[in-house]
Protein backbone atom coordinates (compact mmCIF):
# COMPACT_ATOMS: atom_id res chain seq x y z
CA UNK A 1 0.00 0.00 0.00
CA UNK A 2 1.63 3.23 -1.10
CA UNK A 3 1.14 6.50 0.82
CA UNK A 4 -0.60 8.07 -2.17
CA UNK A 5 -2.98 5.13 -2.67
CA UNK A 6 -3.92 5.20 1.02
CA UNK A 7 -4.66 8.92 0.90
CA UNK A 8 -6.60 8.68 -2.36
CA UNK A 9 -8.78 5.77 -1.23
CA UNK A 10 -9.42 7.43 2.14
CA UNK A 11 -10.52 10.65 0.41
CA UNK A 12 -12.83 8.68 -1.91
CA UNK A 13 -14.49 7.15 1.15
CA UNK A 14 -14.90 10.54 2.78
CA UNK A 15 -12.58 9.75 5.68
CA UNK A 16 -11.26 12.89 7.37
CA UNK A 17 -8.78 11.36 9.81
CA UNK A 18 -6.74 8.19 9.42
CA UNK A 19 -3.77 6.67 11.25
CA UNK A 20 -1.02 4.96 9.28
CA UNK A 21 0.42 2.15 11.39
CA UNK A 22 2.92 -0.05 9.57
CA UNK A 23 4.20 -3.07 11.47
CA UNK A 24 7.10 -1.95 13.68
CA UNK A 25 7.85 1.02 11.45
CA UNK A 26 6.90 4.67 11.00
CA UNK A 27 9.16 5.22 8.00
CA UNK A 28 6.21 5.91 5.68
CA UNK A 29 4.41 8.25 8.08
CA UNK A 30 5.84 11.54 6.80
CA UNK A 31 5.06 10.64 3.17
CA UNK A 32 1.54 9.56 4.18
CA UNK A 33 0.98 12.92 5.90
CA UNK A 34 2.13 14.81 2.79
CA UNK A 35 0.02 12.65 0.49
CA UNK A 36 -2.93 13.09 2.84
CA UNK A 37 -2.61 16.85 2.66
CA UNK A 38 -2.99 16.74 -1.13
CA UNK A 39 -6.20 14.73 -0.80
CA UNK A 40 -7.60 16.59 2.22
CA UNK A 41 -7.09 13.72 4.64
CA UNK A 42 -5.48 14.29 8.04
CA UNK A 43 -2.97 11.53 8.86
CA UNK A 44 -1.80 10.54 12.35
CA UNK A 45 1.67 8.96 12.37
CA UNK A 46 1.56 5.59 14.10
CA UNK A 47 3.02 2.15 14.38
CA UNK A 48 1.69 -1.32 15.14
CA UNK A 49 4.31 -2.72 17.47
CA UNK A 50 4.82 -6.44 18.18
CA UNK A 51 5.82 -7.22 21.76
CA UNK A 52 7.99 -10.18 22.76
CA UNK A 53 4.80 -12.01 23.72
CA UNK A 54 3.70 -11.49 20.09
CA UNK A 55 0.89 -9.15 21.09
CA UNK A 56 0.20 -6.22 18.75
CA UNK A 57 0.00 -2.73 20.23
CA UNK A 58 -0.88 0.45 18.35
CA UNK A 59 1.08 3.58 19.08
CA UNK A 60 -0.42 6.82 17.71
CA UNK A 61 1.83 9.85 17.98
CA UNK A 62 1.44 13.64 18.14
CA UNK A 63 4.20 14.18 15.57
CA UNK A 64 6.44 12.38 13.08
CA UNK A 65 9.42 13.15 15.33
CA UNK A 66 7.77 11.40 18.28
CA UNK A 67 6.99 8.39 16.08
CA UNK A 68 10.55 8.22 14.75
CA UNK A 69 11.96 8.43 18.27
CA UNK A 70 10.00 5.35 19.24
CA UNK A 71 10.83 3.70 15.93
CA UNK A 72 14.53 3.94 16.72
CA UNK A 73 14.07 1.85 19.87
CA UNK A 74 11.76 -0.58 18.07
CA UNK A 75 14.20 -1.11 15.20
CA UNK A 76 16.98 -1.72 17.70
CA UNK A 77 14.83 -4.43 19.28
CA UNK A 78 14.08 -6.32 16.04
CA UNK A 79 16.54 -9.21 15.87
CA UNK A 80 15.85 -10.63 12.37
CA UNK A 81 16.79 -9.54 8.88
CA UNK A 82 14.27 -9.57 6.06
CA UNK A 83 14.57 -12.15 3.29
CA UNK A 84 12.98 -10.30 0.32
CA UNK A 85 12.57 -13.57 -1.67
CA UNK A 86 10.37 -15.02 1.06
CA UNK A 87 8.64 -11.99 2.57
CA UNK A 88 8.89 -9.38 -0.19
CA UNK A 89 10.58 -6.01 -0.12
CA UNK A 90 9.73 -3.62 2.70
CA UNK A 91 9.45 -0.40 0.79
CA UNK A 92 9.95 3.10 2.09
CA UNK A 93 8.12 5.36 -0.38
CA UNK A 94 7.73 9.08 -0.86
CA UNK A 95 4.36 10.79 -1.23
CA UNK A 96 4.41 10.33 -5.03
CA UNK A 97 4.86 6.54 -4.77
CA UNK A 98 8.56 6.64 -5.63
CA UNK A 99 10.62 3.98 -3.88
CA UNK A 100 13.15 5.67 -1.61
CA UNK A 101 14.65 2.74 0.28
CA UNK A 102 14.14 -0.79 1.56
CA UNK A 103 14.07 -1.63 5.24
CA UNK A 104 16.47 -4.54 5.89
CA UNK A 105 14.92 -5.67 9.22
CA UNK A 106 12.14 -8.23 9.31
CA UNK A 107 9.32 -5.88 10.31
CA UNK A 108 6.76 -8.63 10.78
CA UNK A 109 8.89 -10.22 13.50
CA UNK A 110 8.47 -9.71 17.23
CA UNK A 111 10.55 -7.19 19.13
CA UNK A 112 12.38 -8.20 22.29
CA UNK A 113 10.29 -5.73 24.33
CA UNK A 114 7.54 -6.77 26.76
CA UNK A 115 4.04 -5.27 26.47
CA UNK A 116 4.84 -3.12 29.51
CA UNK A 117 8.00 -1.81 27.85
CA UNK A 118 6.17 -1.05 24.59
CA UNK A 119 3.38 0.84 26.36
CA UNK A 120 5.99 2.72 28.42
CA UNK A 121 7.82 3.75 25.23
CA UNK A 122 4.63 5.01 23.57
CA UNK A 123 3.58 6.97 26.64
CA UNK A 124 6.98 8.58 27.11
CA UNK A 125 6.67 9.89 23.54
CA UNK A 126 3.26 11.31 24.55
CA UNK A 127 1.53 8.89 22.23
CA UNK A 128 -1.66 6.94 22.63
CA UNK A 129 -1.22 3.25 23.47
CA UNK A 130 -3.99 1.04 22.13
CA UNK A 131 -4.20 -2.77 22.34
CA UNK A 132 -4.81 -4.04 18.77
CA UNK A 133 -7.80 -6.18 17.74
CA UNK A 134 -8.31 -7.66 21.19
CA UNK A 135 -11.07 -9.95 19.92
CA UNK A 136 -8.78 -11.80 17.53
CA UNK A 137 -7.42 -15.26 18.28
CA UNK A 138 -3.89 -14.37 17.27
CA UNK A 139 -1.51 -11.49 17.99
CA UNK A 140 -3.91 -9.86 20.43
CA UNK A 141 -2.90 -9.13 24.00
CA UNK A 142 -5.76 -11.33 25.20
CA UNK A 143 -4.91 -14.29 22.94
CA UNK A 144 -1.25 -14.10 23.93
CA UNK A 145 -1.57 -13.24 27.62
CA UNK A 146 -5.02 -14.59 28.49
CA UNK A 147 -6.30 -11.26 29.80
CA UNK A 148 -5.21 -7.64 30.10
CA UNK A 149 -2.40 -7.27 32.64
CA UNK A 150 -4.12 -5.09 35.27
CA UNK A 151 -1.23 -2.64 35.62
CA UNK A 152 -0.86 -1.95 31.89
CA UNK A 153 -1.63 1.73 31.20
CA UNK A 154 -3.51 1.60 27.92
CA UNK A 155 -5.44 4.53 26.43
CA UNK A 156 -7.92 2.35 24.56
CA UNK A 157 -8.72 -1.10 23.25
CA UNK A 158 -9.28 -1.76 19.56
CA UNK A 159 -11.85 -4.28 18.43
CA UNK A 160 -11.73 -5.61 14.88
CA UNK A 161 -14.18 -4.45 12.24
CA UNK A 162 -15.57 -8.02 12.22
CA UNK A 163 -16.79 -7.67 15.79
CA UNK A 164 -17.72 -4.01 15.67
CA UNK A 165 -18.06 -1.51 18.50
CA UNK A 166 -21.50 -2.46 19.75
CA UNK A 167 -20.62 -6.14 20.30
CA UNK A 168 -17.21 -5.00 21.50
CA UNK A 169 -18.78 -2.97 24.27
CA UNK A 170 -20.81 -5.94 25.47
CA UNK A 171 -17.76 -8.16 25.71
CA UNK A 172 -14.93 -5.78 26.64
CA UNK A 173 -16.81 -2.95 28.39
CA UNK A 174 -15.83 -4.61 31.67
CA UNK A 175 -12.26 -3.35 31.31
CA UNK A 176 -13.45 0.25 31.68
CA UNK A 177 -11.30 1.51 28.79
CA UNK A 178 -12.43 3.42 25.69
CA UNK A 179 -13.05 1.15 22.71
CA UNK A 180 -12.08 1.98 19.15
CA UNK A 181 -12.68 0.15 15.90
CA UNK A 182 -10.59 0.47 12.77
CA UNK A 183 -10.14 -1.18 9.40
CA UNK A 184 -6.72 -2.78 10.09
CA UNK A 185 -6.40 -2.42 6.31
CA UNK A 186 -3.45 -4.17 4.68
CA UNK A 187 -4.68 -3.35 1.15
CA UNK A 188 -6.36 -0.21 -0.27
CA UNK A 189 -9.72 -1.98 -0.78
CA UNK A 190 -9.80 -2.78 2.95
CA UNK A 191 -9.63 0.86 4.00
CA UNK A 192 -12.79 2.03 5.71
CA UNK A 193 -14.19 -1.42 6.55
CA UNK A 194 -14.05 -0.34 10.20
CA UNK A 195 -13.93 3.11 11.70
CA UNK A 196 -15.17 5.64 14.18
CA UNK A 197 -17.27 8.74 14.24
CA UNK A 198 -15.76 11.33 16.51
CA UNK A 199 -17.50 14.40 17.83
CA UNK A 200 -14.74 16.99 17.88
CA UNK A 201 -13.64 20.42 16.68
CA UNK A 202 -11.20 19.30 13.98
CA UNK A 203 -9.60 16.13 12.63
CA UNK A 204 -6.32 15.52 14.43
CA UNK A 205 -4.35 13.76 17.13
CA UNK A 206 -5.15 16.19 19.97
CA UNK A 207 -8.86 15.99 19.29
CA UNK A 208 -8.70 12.19 19.16
CA UNK A 209 -6.94 12.13 22.53
CA UNK A 210 -9.67 14.32 24.03
CA UNK A 211 -12.38 12.19 22.46
CA UNK A 212 -10.88 8.99 23.87
CA UNK A 213 -10.73 10.55 27.30
CA UNK A 214 -14.24 11.98 26.85
CA UNK A 215 -12.97 15.44 27.72
CA UNK A 216 -13.99 18.99 26.65
CA UNK A 217 -17.17 17.75 25.01
CA UNK A 218 -15.27 15.51 22.58
CA UNK A 219 -16.39 11.92 22.36
CA UNK A 220 -16.39 8.78 20.30
CA UNK A 221 -19.72 8.34 18.57
CA UNK A 222 -20.11 4.69 17.77
CA UNK A 223 -21.19 3.88 14.23
CA UNK A 224 -24.63 2.44 14.99
Amino acid sequence: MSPRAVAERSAQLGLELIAVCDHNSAENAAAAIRAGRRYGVEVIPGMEITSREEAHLLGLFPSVDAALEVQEVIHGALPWENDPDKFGQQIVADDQDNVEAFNPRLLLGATTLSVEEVVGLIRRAEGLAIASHIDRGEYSIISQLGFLPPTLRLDALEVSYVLGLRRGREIYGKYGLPLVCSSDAHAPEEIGRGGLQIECAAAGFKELRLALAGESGRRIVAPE
Partner: protein
Amino acid sequence: MVALKHIIDELGLKVYCCRDTLDRPIIGGYSGDLLSDVMAHSHAGEIWITIQTHPNIIAVASLKELGAILLANGRAPLPETLEKAEMERISVLGSPLPAFELAARLSRLF
Protein backbone atom coordinates in the same frame (compact mmCIF):
# COMPACT_ATOMS: atom_id res chain seq x y z
CA MET B 1 0.48 -39.44 39.00
CA VAL B 2 4.11 -38.48 39.32
CA ALA B 3 5.69 -36.36 42.04
CA LEU B 4 7.00 -33.04 40.75
CA LYS B 5 10.31 -33.78 42.48
CA HIS B 6 10.68 -36.95 40.42
CA ILE B 7 10.07 -35.03 37.16
CA ILE B 8 12.69 -32.43 38.14
CA ASP B 9 15.27 -35.14 38.83
CA GLU B 10 14.52 -37.18 35.69
CA LEU B 11 14.60 -34.19 33.31
CA GLY B 12 17.34 -32.29 35.15
CA LEU B 13 15.22 -29.15 35.51
CA LYS B 14 16.29 -25.87 37.05
CA VAL B 15 14.09 -24.74 39.93
CA TYR B 16 13.51 -20.96 39.90
CA CYS B 17 11.21 -20.81 42.86
CA CYS B 18 9.00 -22.46 45.45
CA ARG B 19 11.22 -25.40 46.45
CA ASP B 20 8.82 -26.23 49.26
CA THR B 21 6.04 -27.24 46.84
CA LEU B 22 7.98 -29.88 44.94
CA ASP B 23 6.22 -32.88 46.48
CA ARG B 24 3.08 -31.89 44.57
CA PRO B 25 1.55 -34.71 42.46
CA ILE B 26 1.41 -34.05 38.71
CA ILE B 27 -1.32 -35.73 36.66
CA GLY B 28 -0.05 -34.91 33.16
CA GLY B 29 1.13 -32.03 31.01
CA TYR B 30 0.03 -29.28 28.67
CA SER B 31 2.10 -27.31 26.19
CA GLY B 32 1.20 -23.89 24.76
CA ASP B 33 2.26 -20.27 24.44
CA LEU B 34 -1.08 -18.61 23.82
CA LEU B 35 -2.34 -18.05 27.33
CA SER B 36 -5.93 -17.84 26.14
CA ASP B 37 -5.56 -21.40 24.81
CA VAL B 38 -3.94 -22.64 28.01
CA MET B 39 -6.79 -21.13 30.03
CA ALA B 40 -9.28 -22.94 27.83
CA HIS B 41 -7.67 -26.37 27.61
CA SER B 42 -5.28 -27.11 30.49
CA HIS B 43 -6.35 -29.04 33.58
CA ALA B 44 -5.66 -28.75 37.29
CA GLY B 45 -2.55 -30.64 38.37
CA GLU B 46 -0.81 -30.53 34.97
CA ILE B 47 2.71 -29.30 34.37
CA TRP B 48 2.62 -26.52 31.74
CA ILE B 49 5.40 -26.20 29.17
CA THR B 50 5.72 -22.71 27.67
CA ILE B 51 8.16 -20.08 26.44
CA GLN B 52 6.07 -17.16 27.73
CA THR B 53 7.69 -15.45 30.72
CA HIS B 54 5.25 -12.59 31.33
CA PRO B 55 3.77 -12.32 34.88
CA ASN B 56 0.39 -13.34 33.47
CA ILE B 57 1.61 -16.96 33.29
CA ILE B 58 1.44 -17.09 37.10
CA ALA B 59 -2.14 -15.83 37.11
CA VAL B 60 -3.12 -18.45 34.53
CA ALA B 61 -1.40 -21.26 36.47
CA SER B 62 -3.06 -20.13 39.67
CA LEU B 63 -6.49 -19.79 38.07
CA LYS B 64 -6.27 -23.27 36.49
CA GLU B 65 -4.55 -24.78 39.57
CA LEU B 66 -1.70 -26.08 37.42
CA GLY B 67 0.98 -28.12 39.17
CA ALA B 68 3.99 -26.19 37.85
CA ILE B 69 5.26 -24.07 34.97
CA LEU B 70 8.17 -25.38 32.90
CA LEU B 71 9.96 -22.75 30.80
CA ALA B 72 11.48 -24.25 27.65
CA ASN B 73 14.37 -23.15 25.42
CA GLY B 74 16.37 -21.76 28.34
CA ARG B 75 13.95 -18.89 28.89
CA ALA B 76 14.25 -17.31 32.33
CA PRO B 77 11.28 -15.80 34.17
CA LEU B 78 11.10 -12.01 34.50
CA PRO B 79 11.78 -10.74 38.05
CA GLU B 80 8.16 -9.63 38.46
CA THR B 81 7.02 -13.07 37.30
CA LEU B 82 9.07 -14.76 40.03
CA GLU B 83 7.74 -12.33 42.61
CA LYS B 84 4.19 -13.30 41.68
CA ALA B 85 5.09 -16.99 41.64
CA GLU B 86 6.36 -16.76 45.22
CA MET B 87 3.13 -15.07 46.26
CA GLU B 88 0.92 -17.63 44.53
CA ARG B 89 3.11 -20.62 45.45
CA ILE B 90 3.54 -21.74 41.82
CA SER B 91 6.72 -23.67 41.06
CA VAL B 92 8.61 -22.22 38.10
CA LEU B 93 11.07 -24.60 36.46
CA GLY B 94 13.36 -24.28 33.46
CA SER B 95 15.24 -26.28 30.87
CA PRO B 96 17.42 -25.48 27.85
CA LEU B 97 15.45 -28.09 25.85
CA PRO B 98 12.67 -27.13 23.41
CA ALA B 99 9.02 -27.89 24.23
CA PHE B 100 8.85 -30.90 21.87
CA GLU B 101 11.75 -32.64 23.57
CA LEU B 102 10.45 -31.82 27.05
CA ALA B 103 6.98 -33.17 26.23
CA ALA B 104 8.48 -36.37 24.79
CA ARG B 105 10.60 -36.97 27.89
CA LEU B 106 7.74 -36.08 30.23
CA SER B 107 5.31 -38.46 28.57
CA ARG B 108 7.63 -41.39 29.30
CA LEU B 109 7.15 -40.77 33.02
CA PHE B 110 3.37 -41.23 32.93
